[in-house]
């Protein structure tokens, strides 16, 4: 079994990666300050699962209006044509631009949903310890973390189109209310991923293995 920093009364600072010796700090509940960078840190993120769950639920709620309301409205000769995230993707499919349709579909639908469902799953696995595979699950977590910012794609596209297509009565583009909700979804999923502490996966695994060995004896 591998030694962890926690067992040795050491704790890693998340900013500067210094190993801090906690054995001489009596009051563990007090806010800890890193000896090197003086930043706040914890041995494990406190209430990590609860925070992840809360941000996740918020993201899920914001995701509903994000898909129902139009994300942008294209005005052409004074007539407005609203499109939602999904209908915008549909237009690309109609035009035969499949690669772009796939990119937008991935960034705006698959990635947020995958993040929300994936984090729910990780929280559940850590909480119950059922079929916990820390090696697989921590890799999965890193994929989720990496993908997060790419969901902002649609927001940037709308921002660009609104600014570029500004030809008065002939044609113009306006942003729709969905863009606010969609941005909130992305921000909330990023907070959710940041709140999750992958070290909990390994902690849980080790405590399960430990109790198994005791039972065998």
């Amino acid at each position, binding site marked *: 079994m*591998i*030694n*962890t*920093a*926690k067992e*040795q009364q*050491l704790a*890693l600072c*998340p*900013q*500067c*990666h210094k*190993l*801090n*010796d906690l054995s001489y700090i009596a009051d563990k509940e007090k806010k800890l300050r890193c*000896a*090197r*960078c*003086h*930043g706040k840190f914890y041995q494990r993120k406190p209430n990590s699962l609860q925070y992840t769950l809360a941000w996740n639920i918020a993201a899920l709620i914001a995701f509903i209006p994000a898909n129902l309301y139009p994300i942008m409205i294209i005005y052409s000769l004074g007539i407005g044509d609203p499109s939602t995230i999904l209908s915008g993707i549909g237009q*690309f499919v109609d*035009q035969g*631009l499949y690669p*772009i349709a796939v*990119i*937008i579909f991935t960034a705006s639908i698959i990635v947020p949903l995958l993040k929300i469902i994936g984090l729910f799953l990780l929280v559940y696995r850590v909480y119950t310890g059922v079929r916990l595979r*820390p*090696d697989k699950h*921590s*890799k999965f977590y*890193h994929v989720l*973390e990496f993908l*997060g*910012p*790419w969901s*902002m*794609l649609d*927001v*940037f*596209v709308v*921002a*660009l189109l*609104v*600014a*570029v*297509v*500004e*030809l008065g009565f*002939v*044609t113009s583009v*306006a*942003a729709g209310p969905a*863009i*606010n909700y969609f*941005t909130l979804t992305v921000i909330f999923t990023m907070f959710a991923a*940041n709140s999750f502490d*992958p*070290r909990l*996966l*390994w902690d849980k695994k080790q405590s399960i293995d430990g109790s198994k060995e005791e039972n065998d004896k």
Partner: protein
Amino acid sequence: MKNKQLIACQQCDALYDKPELKQGQSAKCVRCGSVMAERKVDFIERSFNWSLAGIVLLMPAILLPIMGVTLAGQYNNASLLDCILVLIDRGFFMIASLVFLFAIAVPVVRLLGAFYITYSFKFNKLKPSLLSFFRAFHYLDNWAMLNVFMLGIVVSMYKLIDDTELSVNMGLMAFILWLISSTMASISLDPDYIWQELEDNFID
């Protein structure tokens, strides 16, 4: 002190003896496979030069128009800054401030931060305040989205190319170069080495 010769994996908390790394080598955790420590080659020079290039490109990338459209004899173009100004004009304050944060403020602060840190190391002007400065620098790690904005430019070009006459302006060139230099500046930086040096100089 027992913790001087030890290092812990950031992802799974496994504890190891501190490896002696030469430039260009990295140490991986045997349990979860993530990189724990790395010595980057000649990073002060490289990161300094890339961030200097990024600072030169900063103004053109933000202010020059990225692309323009022509339809029925009318022409309009927009720069990165215009995107934000138009959004404010239309009342989308939250989106405007977030686009400003992710596509301008955070990348600019990171770039200036990388420049300041490598400048201080290059010319040996280390100050104790660098400790808290460099810590703040790390909080911004996840929030720079220039690469996503670049993909946004490509997608909006595809959206416009069918119905309008699309023209590409100098701003796009400047933006791409800015993206490259700021990405290179942050990946060539070696935070472990910087922290170790700062600690040896100002703590103990």
